[in-house]
């Protein structure tokens, strides 16, 4: 990153390094933990690449009216299932002759929303519940964990279907249903890592110096458990995109003709022998997006893990 620090570390052996650090600004002036995370992220090309790709996908989705170049809803029966590279439809057309590029652009909006929002909701609620349960333990912890166990009695997709069926179809209901589905595993993960972290001596030391429970959680527990929880959450995003696609397919989530990658994949699957490349495109988008989220979470985990810092 910065030229100066790079050269000193490269040139200096252990002895020189001491002198280099001796010239460093006095303690307290140094950036905190998050500065260090930022510095490490900036040195990781893979994470930067996937983050840029993700930002690109998000940008195209948000700017769909500007970049799509065609209406995602109107198609022509005459131009059904055109191959990739057709003039006017560079990514081809779908089974009703709608421009696939336009539908992919617009579809990204709903797919990303359906992928990210349930995870974000479950991260906030489930993460909080899990940290509270793991830190406090005892009766509160048992109450939270046993309640969560009830949700484990149902297979997750059936639970989502049941909630969707109860609330009626529509995007917001499917998001809510998926959030409920993701809360139990999120609580489990955060409860486990928190219960481990709270037994560490530095947490006890902080308590022993009269730090309040909220401060102990905020300063000592959360920074040390956030890594695994965030990694798990980002890995759920791809699951969420696929599950919401499944709900749409069953008529419980997004309803046709609104574009959504999962729904498009489902309706195009009949055309897989006619136009395999066109039919695969929504799936490719789901794949790239979830891959990027997974790699990004890996990168963040490494950057947040101080021990890996060389």
């Amino acid at each position: 990153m910065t030229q100066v620090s790079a050269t000193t570390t490269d040139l200096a052996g252990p002895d020189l390094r001491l002198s280099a650090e001796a010239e460093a600004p006095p303690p307290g002036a140094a950036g905190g933990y998050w500065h260090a995370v930022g510095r490490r992220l900036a040195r990781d090309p893979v994470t930067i690449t996937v983050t840029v790709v993700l930002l690109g996908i998000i940008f195209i989705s948000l700017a769909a009216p500007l970049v799509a170049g065609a209406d995602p809803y109107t198609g022509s029966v005459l131009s059904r299932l055109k191959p990739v590279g057709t003039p006017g439809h560079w990514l081809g057309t779908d089974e009703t002759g709608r421009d696939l590029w336009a539908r992919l652009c617009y579809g990204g909006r709903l797919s990303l929303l359906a992928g990210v929002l349930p995870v974000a909701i479950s991260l906030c609620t489930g993460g909080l519940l899990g940290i509270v349960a793991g830190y406090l333990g005892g009766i509160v912890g048992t109450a939270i964990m046993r309640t969560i166990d009830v949700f484990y009695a149902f297979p997750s997709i059936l639970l989502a279907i049941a909630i969707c069926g109860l609330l009626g179809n529509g995007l917001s209901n499917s998001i809510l249903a998926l959030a409920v589905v993701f809360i139990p595993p999120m609580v489990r993960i955060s409860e486990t890592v928190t219960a481990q972290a709270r037994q560490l001596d530095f947490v006890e030391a902080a308590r022993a110096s009269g730090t309040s429970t909220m401060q102990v959680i905020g300063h000592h527990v959360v920074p040390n458990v956030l890594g695994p929880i965030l990694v798990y959450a980002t890995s759920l995003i791809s699951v969420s995109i696929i599950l919401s696609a499944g709900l749409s397919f069953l008529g419980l989530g997004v309803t046709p003709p609104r574009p959504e990658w999962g729904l498009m994949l489902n309706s195009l699957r009949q055309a897989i022998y006619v136009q395999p490349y066109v039919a695969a495109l929504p799936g490719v988008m789901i794949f790239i997006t979830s891959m990027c989220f997974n790699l990004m979470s890996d990168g963040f985990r490494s950057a947040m893990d101080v021990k890996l810092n060389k």
Partner: protein
Amino acid sequence: MSDTARLAASPFTAFTKSDPRDRGGPAQPLLIVENLSRHFPVRGGLLNRRVATVRAVDDVSFAVRKGETLGVVGESGCGKSTTARLLMRLIDPDGGSMVFDGDPVGGRGGISINAMRRQMQMVFQDSYSSLNPRMTMAESISYAPRMHGVPRKQAAERAAALLGQVGLNPRVFARRYPHELSGGQRQRVNIARALALEPRLVILDEAVSALDKSVEAQVLNLLGELKARFNLTYLFISHDLNVVEYVSDRVMVMYLGRIVETGPVDDIYRRPRHPYTRALFASKPTLDPDRRTTEMPLTGDPPNPIDPPSGCRFRTRCAFARPSCADHVPPLASPFGAVAAEPAAHLVACDVPEAQLAGEAGHA
């Protein structure tokens, strides 16, 4: 050195001899613990019922005098660390009371637990897990003062000064993370962290046990220097008898959650009275071939604390046990006629007469 100047400016140097926080005078013990108990329930079966109780610490009473080092020895699982955590109130006691410098702790008319914690700090055995891996050394040390309202800049200065006082150059170590330090260096930082709140009593829970012998010696010397400089009182918990002899003024021997013998270090080491203490010292290897270990060392593991023996807990492994030992718990009393009320008295919890102990087996 600029460090010296910084030290002089630090509020830390303000009290080397006469401590303004001293309330009870020199004769008032810094900490009095009475009938401290902690029983852990063992749960199992249907509905998580309490099926048994581990008496980890059972009816423990002692006093720590101002400026002394009280050593606590005993086998693994005898309740040494639980006692330390009870004193810090990291776990709540089931019973018992504490008096800190004349003030009852946690009760009406006394000082709060947090007020006590400011004056009492702890150094843990595991130097790595007792430092937050996400915090630099300066952040770890200055954390507690900042939580108590010391401004960031002042707290950072105090952290730098403390790093210097534990023998680590603040310019080098302040911005390092725990994994970048050796075990000895980390334990020095832990000591600095414990001192950051300017405590009067420091509990050292196996603080040097995990270190190399050479590093251990350095840290022990450092502890001695800091004790003199900051007028500290130590509660030194260790299973290493040699180290305890070296650092302690008085020693307390624990067995299965109870104190079996306490007294001045010379008395305990030269005239151990309780059969357990004798066996413990007999198990200590000697370097002198003329003074080989003759007394029978302890065999077997300590009994399960879930179901401790009735009466004297040591009787199942004791060479001198008599039927009457099972009847009642022997009180901690003076065997040599010293005044029991005196905090420095040599006290033993054993009913077997001295003559009988001496007659059956001689000890070195």
